[in-house]
């Protein structure tokens, strides 16, 4: 077979903890296959070689929290054939979107000794609020086998086999007994699948790390949480985590005060 030009991969970082792009380096057994299948053209976390665009596939981690980043993401979009966002920061604004519900200047004053050097936006927003995104991979952090599935799919020109259904389906596929029906409040019924339903398999309720499922009924789930003994404050807090700015979670948190 004739040698085909290897697709060029770029990995970009915005406001984030690096955990999602590290899951690519964490692929271990598959990492060499990735490096074989694509030309890793730009991935500062992994390599000091930073080749210029254009890129066939850009993986974008992190949220937009500065005016500089809001411009930079447009440049990346222009250089990328496909742009895939990875992780809750990039898809929903991340934990740092808690600033959206408060005064960011108060945070800055509380954290930094010399706040006058900090230039930041009042909000943390997902990449899709700024540029067109071809696919969003949810999770805090993302699941590495899902990441491999997305990369493989884009290389093959097919749709990633990643559903937008609930964590409940993952529990049932693996045979985990429902923790909520046994009395433990769980976000699984409103949360996007992808993690493989880890927490319920350890007899814990889901924390919603993968953000809202398609068409979540958070109000009905919240009503059941109250019946199980949760307080409105519990509900407010549980919807205000890594995906706090995802609209269905934002609304449900708001519905329960603070």
């Amino acid at each position, binding site marked *: 077979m004739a040698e085909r030009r290897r697709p060029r991969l770029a990995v970009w970082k915005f406001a984030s903890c690096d955990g999602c792009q590290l899951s690519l380096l964490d692929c271990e057994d598959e990492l060499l296959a990735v490096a074989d299948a694509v030309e890793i053209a730009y991935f500062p976390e992994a390599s000091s070689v930073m080749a210029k665009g254009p890129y066939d596939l850009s993986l974008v981690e992190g949220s937009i929290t500065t005016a500089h980043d809001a411009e930079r993401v447009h440049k990346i979009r222009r250089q990328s054939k496909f742009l895939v966002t990875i992780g809750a920061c990039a898809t929903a604004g991340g934990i740092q979107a808690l600033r959206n519900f408060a005064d960011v200047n108060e945070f800055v004053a509380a954290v930094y000794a010399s706040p006058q050097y900090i230039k930041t936006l009042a909000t943390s927003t997902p990449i899709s609020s700024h540029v067109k995104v071809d696919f969003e991979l949810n999770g805090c952090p993302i699941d590495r086998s899902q990441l491999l599935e997305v990369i493989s799919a884009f290389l093959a020109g097919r749709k990633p086999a990643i*559903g937008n259904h609930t964590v*409940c389906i993952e529990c049932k596929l693996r045979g985990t007994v429902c923790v909520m029906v046994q009395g433990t409040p769980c976000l699984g019924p409103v949360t996007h699948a992808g993690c493989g339903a880890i927490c319920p398999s350890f007899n814990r309720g889901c924390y919603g790390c993968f953000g809202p499922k398609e068409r979540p009924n958070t109000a009905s789930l919240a009503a059941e949480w109250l019946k199980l003994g949760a307080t409105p404050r519990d509900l407010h807090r549980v919807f205000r985590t890594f995906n706090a700015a995802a609209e269905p979670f934002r609304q449900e948190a708001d519905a329960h005060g603070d």
Partner: protein
Amino acid sequence: MAGGEPPIGTQAMLSLDGLRALIEALAERGYQVLGPTVRDGAIVYDEVAKLADLPSGWTDQQDAGRYRLERRTDNALFGYAVGPQSWRRFLHPPIERMWRAHRTEDGFAIDATAVEAEPSKFAFLGVRACEIHAIAIQDKVLVEGPYVDTGYQRRRRDNFLVAVNCGQAGGTCFCASMNTGPKVDAGFDLALTELLDESDHRFLIEVGSVAGAEVLSALRHHAASPEDIAAADAVVARTAGSMGRVLDTKGLKELLQSNPTHPRWDDVAARCLSCANCTMVCPTCFCTTVEDHSDLTGQTAERVRRWDSCFTADFSWIHGGSVRPETKSRYRQWITHKLASWIDQFGTSGCVGCGRCVTWCPVGIDITVEAAAIRATPATSTETDHGRT
């Protein structure tokens, strides 16, 4: 013990030790024995190697959206209703690879060695009447129609069923309404009725097949007396009289099919999470999706089948979008298929009254309550055109 194998229909008595011998006899015959056992705070169906694996002295308290284990006052082994997930998990597994292929010089080839060898044949211990009816329904759908699921067919062909007549009804049970229990009437190899009092713990065992007769002939047993048979009948009669739920099936098919615009669909949609738990625990649901995967190098690809649900948006996704974007239309589709159009399609209701969809709904939506609500205020004939929403 008399020579030869006992004829089908034979009723005999088996001791606790005899039950232990039954588990061993099945294992000796090459079966993977699966039965009830306590795990994760529930009585689930899993591997059973010895008597002590069974849920001795445990029962389940079930209600809409609620399940908890409780201690019984006796040491009954089958003193619970039904497990969180049905036997479907073994016969129609949640994830199954259909095939794998690799790239060749001029195309691709199916990788024959990747078709997994069938690991074992299953003996199910403790199958309830509703569950036997559910298996019969899946047989009809997956084997007896024009398109045969060969994996399911193979697993069923090698399947040994030890049924148990229910000693008590669960809080969400309504098999009596669906004419599917609590007494097993057919479709089993052996059927047990647990008889337990202060002095004795034993089982009435009934032969349901030639294979069952062969297994029973290898076990120490003795003839059942008329008193034993009467005691077993009393167990089932008591259970039939204590159903946790009732579903009025009279005219139910026509009722649901003529009420597509009933206001109750909005009401239930306000509660429904569209989480799919009801369909995942249902013993008759059979819907799957197929996922195609290719590897990073483009050298191998595989097709995987996994359980799907009419409650997901992807399930009804056709070019351009989902046919059922709203939860309302998904719930209506599910209950109307299960209780009504299933009859048009397969000649039987899709519901066996096991109550799992009621118990395992995180917000406790109850199929019997929803059907009754439609019945309470059915649409007038002018409101029944199907196109209106």
